[in-house]
């Protein structure tokens, strides 16, 4: 007697729960992005919802691998996904994302041609990613520790900063940083031994490996570090939003640049809503507000950057043609390369113990 009743109850609960998750309303836009990265700003969501009548549902990932896994395991759940251009190719090859009809995205016309034309975002003449923002993995300094900002990457190896240097705990970033320090192309590292010995000599300088913006900002706030690798948008946020003595340095040897783009997952239920959301995200009005209130990387939309004040960091420094010459954009990395980089990185970390 009891058991059938219980079974019925459990079945009913399961059906109800799955109905809840599956019945994404037609006017909902499910967005997958890093947390605290523009698309989940409450003021932005409110403005977008008011303007288009779409409701935004945010979901987050903590690594590119997690993002790909979420797309693989939840087909047709998300309508918009933010993908680093270096991973776009993989998502495209696995048929996780669909071609985008850019004629439905009015602001697409204002995206700078070099970003829109990036070979990483297109295949067979179809667009698979709309460039959103780009930025650098460069150096940032604790202003209290420097009278004049350094200009060379060699400052990381300076004995004076022993035990007060930080670097992100990320094998790919670490190895590419080593490539720049040894004057190599980050996408075609020929002399891996040189990278390894350069990074080996950096290890004794390191205080700790950072993994989130919060780590970095905490260490500066408590004056524990002088210099370290950092993302341009995060350095801007640390200064604007958290009022910390942080400033970004783009070393003369160069820096790693990345491009973030929006894509529409295969099987998205609300493609029209997704197009509207992407259009809003690359709109100058949203961008200026994002930079002013929170701090952000550089928009791929030329009109959005032009709408910033003349002396804004993202316009003055990042827009400097001299900087453009120095930076190297990340190209896709194969799984085998990624594993080789991790093996090297782990070896470095073990040998320092």
């Amino acid at each position: 007697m009891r058991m059938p009743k219980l079974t019925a109850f459990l079945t009913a609960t399961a059906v109800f729960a799955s109905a809840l998750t599956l019945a994404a309303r037609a006017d909902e836009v499910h967005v997958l992005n890093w947390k605290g990265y523009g698309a989940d700003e409450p003021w932005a969501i409110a403005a977008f919802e008011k303007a288009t009548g779409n409701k935004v549902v945010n979901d987050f990932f903590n690594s590119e691998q997690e993002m790909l896994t979420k797309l693989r395991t939840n087909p047709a759940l998300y309508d918009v996904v933010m993908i680093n251009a270096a991973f776009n190719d993989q998502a495209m090859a696995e048929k996780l994302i669909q071609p985008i009809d850019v004629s439905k995205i009015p602001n697409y016309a204002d995206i700078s041609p070099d970003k829109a034309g990036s070979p990483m975002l297109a295949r067979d003449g179809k667009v698979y990613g709309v460039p959103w923002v780009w930025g650098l993995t460069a150096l940032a300094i604790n202003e209290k520790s420097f009278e004049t900002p350094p200009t060379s990457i060699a400052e990381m190896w300076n004995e004076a900063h022993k035990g007060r240097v930080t670097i992100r705990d990320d094998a790919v970033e670490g190895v590419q940083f080593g490539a720049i320090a040894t004057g190599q192309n980050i996408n075609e590292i020929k002399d891996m031994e040189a990278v390894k010995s350069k990074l080996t000599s950096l290890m004794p300088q390191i205080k700790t490996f950072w993994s989130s913006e919060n780590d970095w900002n905490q260490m500066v706030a408590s004056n524990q570090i002088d210099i370290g690798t950092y993302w341009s948008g995060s350095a801007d946020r640390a200064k604007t939003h958290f009022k910390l003595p942080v400033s970004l340095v783009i070393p003369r040897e160069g820096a790693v640049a990345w491009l973030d783009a929006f894509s529409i997952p295969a099987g998205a239920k609300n493609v029209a809503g997704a197009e509207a959301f992407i259009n809003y995200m690359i709109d100058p009005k949203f961008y200026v507000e994002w930079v002013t209130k929170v701090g952000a990387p550089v928009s791929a939309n030329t009109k959005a950057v032009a709408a910033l004040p003349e002396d804004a960091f993202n316009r003055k420094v990042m827009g400097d043609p001299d900087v453009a010459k120095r930076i190297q954009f990340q190209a896709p990395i194969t799984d085998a390369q990624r594993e080789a980089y991790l093996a090297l990185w782990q070896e470095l970390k073990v040998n320092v113990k």
Partner: protein
Amino acid sequence: MAGQVVTGSRSGLRSALPLLLPAYLWLTVAIFLPLSAMVFFSFMTELPLSGRAWSFTLDNYATFFSQGLYWTLLLASLRLGLEVTLWCVVIGYPAAYVLAKVFRGRSREAIFLLVILPFWSNGLVRIFSWAMVLREGGILDTALNAVLPFKINIDLMYSYPAVIIGLVHSYVPYMVLTCYLTLQAIDDSLIEAGRSLGASRLQMLKRVIIPLSMPGLVAGAALIFVPVVGSFMEPRILGGRTGTFYGTVIEDQFVAVFNWPLGAALSFILLAVVLVILALASPVLKRVA
């Protein structure tokens, strides 16, 4: 129901089944199935997601033996486990003794509460609190410099001792609880008898109290040693550049490069090593217990 039990062990099992079923169902679904899946993964070349080709292989296990890195890390993690367990004994055992034999009634309850209080807070919160205490210019540094007449510089953050401190703090309640249970069970008249026969305090401890409470010590040590060897959160946050251990490398395989097969293989090697250690130790421990 009682009548059925009397009729024989078969029907005894049958009547016990509804009672056992939830626990075993839970163990099957939550532990056995995922663990079997992980064993399966550890022999694969790729995860079978989105139609990638995969096959069976032993390479993941071979990787462990072909690279000295994993051995070094495993030994470092085992050493960490031993050190943390030792400190937990040094700190936890006397506390358990005082709780079991000195305090009575209300004051025992109050102290007991203080011991298990850390269990109720989230592990991450505890670690980040330690980060605030241990760093240069942190709470410990400031407090000591405010009291002491001379200037000292305490910066334990991002070091091996910081990892030990964090882990000992997290795991010492296990030692206190298990030792408390066995110490409390020791009949006071045995202690009185020993004393009346002229045993010194040290002799009492060595000949009566420690042998009788050995099961608690062993249980506590096993409860602490096993998770500490595989720990990754504390070393990562508190250890800084010295914070790379076997557990953090496994985490990297799962999170950073999405190489679940290798991560799973490394985990099972750890499991095997821990089981071997416990098996080797068990006759010795049984004898003393």
